[in-house]
């Protein structure tokens, strides 16, 4: 170890999944996550693990459901239109308390959209997406090395909370090559025991995996248990990063790739003497409302920058309320705002 490889985000996610002990990977091809699928196709069989190119994203996530129920670490990956098809399975995973990792390398939408980077699936990822009162943990890496680290973390959190976890990224990060030191493979013995899994009812009562009960009282309790779990996750798993916020007057709120670009903007703004900082949620669900609320009482402006029409913007406004101005700057359709675009926006508000 200690060796640094020049790798694409997609490959790093795939390799990190392997090192996190992912035993079964199921997916259907789609741009811009093809390298992820291909890395798994090359490596999983070699390691005696499962790679299946499924007939559709619905089938892929259903296979994940089966493998997760059987107690192994499992993952699927796709991009926006494919993630729409996975919503049924994600809802079932959440409802059945099954751990699994889902990667969304987001592209421009709606509909078929394009294959350029976008953050337009933020609502879908953080507000449910599928049917029912559920959430999944959503991790938004902003660099290639972080994509690897968060993939390792995703498997850990999935098992700890018995919940689906999403890596929310985009084609820019997926295709970008960066030098990375890949995470160390985990010790398989460190994976928590799964006494609830359907591993064969030998010497114990049968284990049943299901997401439903026709008795509203029972289903209500199942929902209350889910919500209690979400509160525990909110307590323990908030992750975010602040850059140069101590003396900032304007804070840019951005996640993922956009945050990385915003970092450049912060540096340039500082060179111009503007007191600009960056607030970057790493978990976009749970969203770091409290830390942002706290921060917003010391600044005059929180400028949200996204590759969307303003989706995370809603969470930012919820957090900030009336404490600071909350302007928005965004691009859609796969257009990536440049540092120069954002900087001129910053100048407007830093007044």
């Amino acid at each position, binding site marked *: 170890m200690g060796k640094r490889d020049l790798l694409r985000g997609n490959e790093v996610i795939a390799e990190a999944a392997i090192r996190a002990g992912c035993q079964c990977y199921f997916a259907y091809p789609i741009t811009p996550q093809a390298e992820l699928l291909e890395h798994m196709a090359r490596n999983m069989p070699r390691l005696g693990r499962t790679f299946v190119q499924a007939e559709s994203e619905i089938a892929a996530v259903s*296979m994940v459901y089966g493998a997760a129920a059987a107690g192994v670490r499992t993952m699927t990956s796709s991009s926006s239109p494919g993630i729409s098809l996975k919503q*049924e399975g994600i809802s079932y995973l959440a409802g059945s308390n099954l751990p699994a990792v889902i990667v969304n390398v987001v592209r421009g939408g709606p509909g078929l959209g394009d294959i350029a980077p976008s953050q337009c699936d933020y609502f879908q990822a953080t507000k449910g997406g599928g049917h029912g009162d559920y959430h999944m943990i959503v991790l938004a890496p902003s660099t290639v090395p972080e994509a690897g680290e968060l993939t390792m973390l995703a498997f850990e959190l999935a098992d700890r909370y018995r919940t689906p976890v999403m890596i929310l990224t985009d084609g820019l990060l997926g295709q970008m090559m960066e030098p990375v030191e890949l995470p160390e493979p985990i010790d398989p013995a460190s994976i928590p025991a799964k006494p609830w899994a359907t591993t064969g009812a030998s010497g114990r009562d049968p284990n049943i995996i299901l997401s439903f009960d026709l008795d509203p009282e029972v289903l209500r309790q199942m929902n209350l248990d889910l919500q209690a779990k979400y509160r525990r996750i909110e307590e323990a798993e908030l992750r975010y990063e602040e850059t140069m916020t101590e003396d900032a007057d304007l804070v840019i709120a951005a996640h993922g790739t956009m945050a990385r670009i915003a970092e450049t903007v912060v540096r340039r703004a500082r060179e111009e003497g503007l007191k600009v900082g960056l607030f970057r949620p790493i978990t976009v669900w749970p969203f770091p409302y409290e830390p942002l609320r706290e921060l917003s009482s010391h600044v005059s402006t929180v400028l949200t920058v996204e590759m969307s029409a303003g989706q995370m913007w809603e969470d930012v406004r919820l957090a900030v309320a009336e404490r600071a101005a909350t302007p928005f700057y965004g691009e859609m359709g796969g257009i990536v705002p440049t540092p120069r675009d954002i900087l001129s926006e910053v100048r407007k508000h830093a007044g």
Partner: protein
Amino acid sequence: MQVETADMVKVFSRPQSLTAAKSTYCPGCHHGILTRIIGKTIDELGIAERTVCIAPVGCSVFAYNWYRCDAIQAAHGRASAVATGVKRADPNLIVFAYQGDGDFASIGTAESIHAANRGENITVIFVNNQVYGMTGGEMAPTSLVHQKTTTTPAGRDPAQVGYPIRFSEMIAQLDAPTYITRQALFDTRRILDTEEAIKKAFENQVNEKGYSLVEVLSTCPTNWRMSPIASNKHVADVVTEVFPLGDLVDRR
């Protein structure tokens, strides 16, 4: 009733692999006979401790309650894909998917065909009762021409909605499946045939022979609006004309 056990031997009883749960099926529904046959098969092969049942959405949604084995309730139509996931995760498990005709042959069309085409080493029990039982008797892909259902009140009109789909025959066109058969339960002889077919379908999996599909012509007295006995006769006289019984593929 008193039974003198001194000179009497029990020759028929509830399979060990079934729980004591009372079935949720309507009187006379063949789902119940199939449950017994599967339980008996699990007993005979001694596989309860490594069997995983994949329950569908449909009247058999509670199938996870019937067997003394692990079980997973799958989304509507996805049981064959879920079975694939389980089997790939642990090939030592014996995985069977139990699916109605709406589940298997309509909403799950892609998952059903592709699990078969990959030759997944699983067992699929496909219950063809020509109707959507659970949701109140709507047309199924297998509904007969002119069959009255709640969504074809004037009878299934092929000009509008096509003909009953012979799904097993479609799957039989594939190279991978090991065993595909169509059976029925309308009399003792057919019940015994079905017992044999289901045992084969599980044995194939135990012996790592690959994909087995047992389609079973079943009744839905409730939604057919027929007595259980008239339903049996309907299967024997009418349904088997459209869905002929017998093996379609046997490559063991």
